[in-house]
């Protein structure tokens, strides 16, 4: 578990007199893997005019902090927004991130992705103990034998790795990384900044 106190949103280029300087203006990278409602986890109206894509890691504290911010954005924009979550587990620094991603995907296989996604972010401190998520899977009425088997056999590993590489090719440089209508959002991972970005890029 990371204990860093630094903020996630320090990557916007700042004016500086320090050398060397970058001569070009900075273009935010674009999402190169289009949203596919048949594959992606999409929340909200599939035909919404605004799309927010998050590449996230369930163990990342910045993602945990961004989770309620996304909820606020969804509340504010309502049916105008669809929200897409893709996996970007930083497994070399977050030892529980892969299992957590597999847990959400195993719930997804039984139609309960968003329930488990929310639960994991709301219980980040318990990720080391898989029985907590298993208990929730039971509560959701999932076939827990199948759920456990799919996690143990890494059935969703390829999908998660595909999400990851698609993110890398789109310029994901840490977690969380958001895309607003297909363009990387380099501002703060906070509701106000996300809403403003969504409104100006619509």
């Amino acid at each position, binding site marked *: 578990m*990371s204990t860093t106190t630094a903020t996630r949103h320090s*990557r916007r280029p700042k004016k500086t007199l320090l050398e060397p300087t970058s001569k070009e203006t900075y273009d935010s990278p674009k999402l190169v893997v289009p949203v596919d409602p048949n594959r992606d986890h999409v929340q909200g109206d599939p035909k919404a005019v605004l799309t927010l894509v998050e590449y996230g890691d369930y163990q990342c504290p910045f993602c945990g902090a961004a989770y309620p911010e996304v909820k606020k954005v969804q509340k504010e924009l309502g049916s105008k927004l669809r929200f897409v979550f893709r996996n970007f587990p930083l497994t070399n620094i977050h030892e529980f991130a892969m299992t957590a991603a597999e847990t959400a995907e195993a719930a997804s296989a039984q139609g309960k992705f968003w329930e488990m996604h929310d639960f994991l972010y709301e219980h980040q401190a318990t990720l080391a103990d898989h029985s907590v998520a298993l208990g929730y899977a039971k509560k959701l009425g999932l076939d827990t034998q199948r759920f456990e088997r799919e996690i143990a056999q890494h059935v969703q590993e390829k999908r998660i790795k595909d999400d990851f590489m698609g993110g890398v090719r789109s310029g994901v*440089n840490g977690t969380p990384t958001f895309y607003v209508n297909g363009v990387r959002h380099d501002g703060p991972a906070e509701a106000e900044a996300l809403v403003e970005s969504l409104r100006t890029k619509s």
Partner: protein
Amino acid sequence: MILNPGRKAPNFSLNSTPDQKVSLKDFRGQPVILAFYPADWSPVCTDQLSLYAMVMPEFKKFNAELLAISVDNIWSHLAFAKDRKLNFPVLADFEPKGDISRKYGAFKEKIGESARALFVIDEQGIVRWSHLSPDGVNPGAEGILSALEQLNAPKAQ
């Protein structure tokens, strides 16, 4: 100004551990990625080198080596590399401080740190792609992968 594509990459020999040095010319015959960065210990979830450690299998598909370079000393590098499970050499441009970073145009004199600059060097030791990130921007891995693909693009024989 950072070294532009087409230039010969200056050789160097820098410590990767207290008693081992790594030289650029050791890797002649394969592509080399040089990642200059300001300092060890940036926040984990946004750490450029942690991301590269995860993308390493993709770099390896191009037979590429990655060498990370900053002015931090070797003991900081060792602790940092262990903590972030880095799977490539992290070199100390420590004495004379920033000497190699300067040769690549990737040293910020006023604050005494390497810039966040990337170079892809081909099998013959020629810089084929370079990129300087704006302050505070982690460039991610996409530019490197595109540059490696370009190297691999079929050449006229």
